């Protein structure tokens, strides 16, 4: 967004108190951590207000001033509390340096509409901070798990060594445990055997059905769609209970085939939804043209239709794969010890004797899901490009 509003420097009486208030806020936390919140507020407000005044009014050159504040606070931090405080000092120095000049130069006004009152500007930024906090809430659990998995101890919190960035505090032992434990490796192997088979089933049936569903005249379309989507809607525990009762009646409970069938059924709605969505943009005249030129329906399907809807099919397949790979409730009931999958092993670990190996597994899974997310996003873009829906 370009600048909407002409900006000008602000008077000292405005920005120094604001920076001081921010300093007081930071001082509150540092102070309570050290034992006295009130003292922290006062010291924080005074030092940061003074810092803002010195940086803007005495040093003036912005680059020097900002680097200066970073170095100053870093040094103070290091003297007071070693490496962890140094990092904190750098962050504080960078933030207050930037904040002082941001306010002093009036840059905060540049991107908001010129007619806003100061109160509205304040709300504008407060709102962004709230949103930022919520996004942090979304991502924190995942971010916390990753460093904790390198913990050298059997603890689930950051040890003092870790906070000091002491290499002694970090190790790969939980990853070693994971790769050396037969229980975990067996679970991985089971997951790897079950998920692809289930995916294959749901993708092959699902794609055919999606093509059928996207034709113009389908009797009972709504009813059929409702049935096909139902595995996604019915709570997993109910699916699991029903499958457990029924599969033990027919002798599939506790077998590999039973688990694969159950997972295939759970993955089908995802395939149906993604593939029908892809088919919405599919130009039917292409298949007619192919038929016109003498291709039989099978050739038309594999040479014309399939390559065009392939991105949708693959991302549907990925969804089905992830569903099966992540699934624990149904396999818990339908499977037996011989089908113990990775999530099942994690679930038992979480319920019984929780060990940090779980965090190592979690980190590996997060990395896998980041890869899958990237693939799906690329496929989505490719599919839109193929169908000419977006230029990029």
């Amino acid at each position, binding site marked *: 967004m370009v600048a909407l509003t002409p900006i000008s420097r602000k008077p000292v009486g405005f920005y120094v108190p604001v920076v001081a208030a921010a300093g007081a806020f930071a001082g509150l936390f540092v102070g309570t951590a050290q034992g006295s919140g009130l003292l922290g507020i006062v010291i924080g407000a005074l030092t940061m207000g003074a810092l803002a005044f010195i940086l803007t009014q005495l040093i003036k050159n912005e680059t020097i001033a900002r680097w200066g504040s970073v170095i100053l606070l870093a040094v103070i931090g290091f003297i007071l509390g070693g490496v962890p405080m140094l990092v904190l000092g750098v962050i504080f120095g960078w933030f207050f340096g930037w904040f002082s000049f941001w306010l002093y130069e009036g840059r905060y006004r540049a991107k908001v509409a010129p007619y806003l009152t100061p109160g509205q500007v304040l709300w504008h930024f407060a709102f962004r901070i709230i949103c930022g906090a919520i996004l942090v809430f979304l991502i924190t659990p995942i971010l916390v798990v990753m460093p904790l998995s390198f913990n050298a101890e059997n603890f689930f919190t950051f040890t003092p060594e870790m906070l000091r960035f002491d290499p002694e505090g970090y190790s790969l032992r939980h990853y070693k445990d994971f790769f050396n434990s037969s229980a975990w490796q067996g679970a991985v192997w089971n997951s790897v055997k079950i998920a692809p088979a289930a995916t294959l089933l749901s993708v092959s049936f699902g794609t055919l059905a999606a093509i059928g569903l996207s034709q113009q005249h389908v009797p009972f379309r709504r009813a059929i769609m409702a049935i096909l989507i139902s*595995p996604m809607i019915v709570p997993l525990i109910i699916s699991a209970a029903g499958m457990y009762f029924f599969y033990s009646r027919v002798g599939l409970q506790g077998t590999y085939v039973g688990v694969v069938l159950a997972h295939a059924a759970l993955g089908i709605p995802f395939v149906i939804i993604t593939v029908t969505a892809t088919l919405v943009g599919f130009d039917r005249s292409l298949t007619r043209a192919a038929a016109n030129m003498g291709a039989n329906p099978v050739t038309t399907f594999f040479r014309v239709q399939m390559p065009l809807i392939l991105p949708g099919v693959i991302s549907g397949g990925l969804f089905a794969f992830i569903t099966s790979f992540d699934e624990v409730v149904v396999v818990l009931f339908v499977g037996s010890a011989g089908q113990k999958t990775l999530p099942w092993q994690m679930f038992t670990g979480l319920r019984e004797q929780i060990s940090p190996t779980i965090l190592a597994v979690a980190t590996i899974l997060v990395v896998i899901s980041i890869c899958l997310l990237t693939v799906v996003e690329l496929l989505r873009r490719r599919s839109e490009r193929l169908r000419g829906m977006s230029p990029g």
Partner: protein
Amino acid sequence: MSDTADATNDTSEQAGPVLAADGTPLKRSLNRALRRQKLSALLLIAPLLIFILVTFIAPIADMLFRSVENQIVQDTLPRTTQTLAEWDSESGETPGAPVYKALYEDLFIAQERKLHTRLGSRLNYELTGASSLFRKSGRGVDDIGEVYQDQFEDLNDFWKKGENWNALLGSDAWLTEISGWKKSTGDVQPPFEMREGMAELLPETAEYYAIFADFVQNDDEDNLYKEDPWALIYSAFYDDLTGPTAAQIASYTGPASAELGEAAAAAPAFETVDYKAAFSEIDKDWGKTPIWGTIRAYSPALTNGYFLNAVDMQKSPDGPEFRPDNERIYGTLFLRTLFMSICITVSCILLGYPVAWILANLPARTANLLMILVLLPFWTSLLVRTSAWKVMLQQQGVINDTLVWLGIVADDSRLALINNQTGTIIAMTHILLPFMILPLYSVMQTVPPSYLRAAKSLGATNWTAFWRVYFPQSVPGIGAGSILVFILSIGYYITPEIVGGTTGTFISNRIAYHISSSLNWGLAAALGAILLAVVLGLYWTYDKIVGIDNVKLGG
């Protein structure tokens, strides 16, 4: 297509039939094409439809059936339930002697087949103590029958041997077959055949001997010829010898007629068994009405008992009634599930709305970047996120450590964030938040930002502009997201199980408990059926508001 069909119709009325290229009327030709199209579409869908029907819908239907199925009482105690039907449960008296005799016969067969303990555990769901009562009685019934067995065996050693019984009751053809049969040859054992006339001569003995023979040959897979009969056969034999058909025995001339005549002559002088007293001696509960009331209430093949249990009610002589206050758990559990799901939905709205708003109003590039932060948790394994919360919420976990370090809480009064409702609500709000943000975002994208500016330029304050102009247009998104989150949360199992402890669990945890621990499958099925009904109702609403075709995944 119907438009075209109508159009064809109109033309044909005006100017005679329009013909297709091959000479058939266009209307018929079009109809045929339409039919073929429908058929090919159905053919493409059929494999998947059958697959889903078999692997998914059939299990659900089976579960629903299980919630009312109750054949075990009737199957295990067929004679008892039949005779018990005439008993007046309100008289306050125990049933008459025939019922106890029927119970003896049923229970004897059941304990041989090892079915009585299953029936006991089934009835134990309705009447505490039934399980041990049946186990005890299963051990006791043998003694009741032995009274007659001993007397017959004392009378003549002939009655001790299985071969002699077979010679008396088996047909000649079967006897020659069985005597030549050996288990080691691997041939199928020749199935028992009753001698002609035995069913009239000794009706009860014949009936139970047939059951005995079937059990030995098919369940135990032993050689029937060598097998000594159950004590039950002796008591039935006694009944026959003293019963209405006893007079015919004198005219019997087949094998073992001498021994039979001797037994018939001696039987009337035998010591008899008072079944009622015998059962009361095994356990005095048999001499009281509650167990009989329960057996009678649960003798039909279908029952609403599981559903009554699922809503904290029970059967009583005056029809269904609520259980005593201290036994009501499911009502509280359903209410708690609803309450927590609502809490989770509301927190998802509160947290999701600002994020969706900012995503919809930022420039596309920044919005896409921030979208990754929403999609990453969405794509991350549920177990990973749950374990992250388990680790973070612990007493010695990251959150408490941070709070203690900041001095907000004291070290000795760390917050209890896990194994209670708070834990479940925090973790599930995090897990379900993307399901709220995504539909909200897609609705908010369609609201033109100029509306807000227009409202403001017309003099509305920020709040009025938002509340009167923007918010109403985002309500469909809130509706869609809320129903989605609510449906998902009401049936959640994994997260409450791990972070919920005892007070933060949902109805689904109870269902799982009944399936895997208490083995009360009928009650699990009934609870599941109620939950399913709630979810399907919500799903139907969702379909009305949003339409299932509009479900989008991952943006």
